[in-house]
């Protein structure tokens, strides 16, 4: 037997199961994330987001911004990413994302935080071990302004036994 016996170490589990969600329940998600110039440029280039608005400061200034605009898809991915541990990490795949609104531009140096509310939940008819949950998630900047809103629906695993 290994010394120490790692099989005796209790798991620090993460995430929530279907039964953990209640209608109207709100989550203030962990961490927040300051998006820097390197984040914005890396994301926009690796995702082939070929408009200079997202990677050319001079061009973005000519369009009325103080510098490059953080790719709104990076803003959406980050706000959803911050929500994953609370909402979907233990659960299951995306079923879909509903209306997404980009309400204000985000600039390098801005800090995003994420908050979600449970808007619907039901048991899956096709998959007995799962439920289906819809959340409304919003991302705010450091001034408390909402920069993005979205709704997403996931398959979420029920607690064992399956």
């Amino acid at each position, binding site marked *: 037997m290994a010394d120490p016996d790692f099989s005796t170490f209790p798991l620090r589990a993460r995430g929530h199961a279907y039964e953990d969600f209640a209608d109207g329940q709100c989550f203030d998600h962990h961490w927040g*994330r300051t998006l820097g110039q390197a984040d914005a440029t890396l994301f926009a280039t690796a995702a082939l987001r070929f408009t200079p608005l997202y990677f050319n400061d001079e061009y973005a200034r000519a369009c009325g911004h103080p510098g490059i605009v953080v790719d709104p898809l990076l803003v959406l991915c980050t706000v959803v990413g911050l929500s994953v541990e609370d909402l979907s990490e233990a659960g299951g795949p995306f*079923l879909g994302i509903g209306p997404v609104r980009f309400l204000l531009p985000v600039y390098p140096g801005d800090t995003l935080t994420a908050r979600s509310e449970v808007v619907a939940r039901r048991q899956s008819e096709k998959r007995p071990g799962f439920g289906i949950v819809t959340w409304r998630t919003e991302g705010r900047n450091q001034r408390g302004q909402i920069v993005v809103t979205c709704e997403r629906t996931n398959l979420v695993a029920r607690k064992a036994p399956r």
Partner: protein
Amino acid sequence: MAEKVAALTGNDNYFEDFVAGSRMRHARGTTVGEVENQLMTKLVMNTADAHFNEQRMAATPFGHRLVFGLITGSIVIGLATQDTAENALAEVGLDRLMFRAPVFHGDTLTAYTEVLETRDADRDDAGIVRFKHWGLKQDDTVVFEGEREVLVKRRSHWGTR
């Protein structure tokens, strides 16, 4: 800036160029791998190790790490961006995003777009274009679809600036 901004972007994708019902197959595809999935998933704070733990996923029906759906969606929209938003002033929103089949490292994505609608915006120098995008992988399976609205410059106001 020193040179004209219009010289930095194409001249075939201003608001006036989009017509409802027109379709396009975008020029480039991209194979997704460690950079696109593992790095970008972690960059955006997605903590779910279904996207970056190959050993655990080997024991599931998927068999491999799954590419984070919003990264797939971002890349499909990215493959469509030069043709649909090179002259954008802003991206307004998305809707009806569907993740229809799993994407794995090594898969190659290509993108297709239809113009659903064009309409005036609340400013004179740009208009709104609504697109439908589809992302396919190498066996022609549709892996992603979604709608997107973009505020696109009008050539009449921006074409010579």
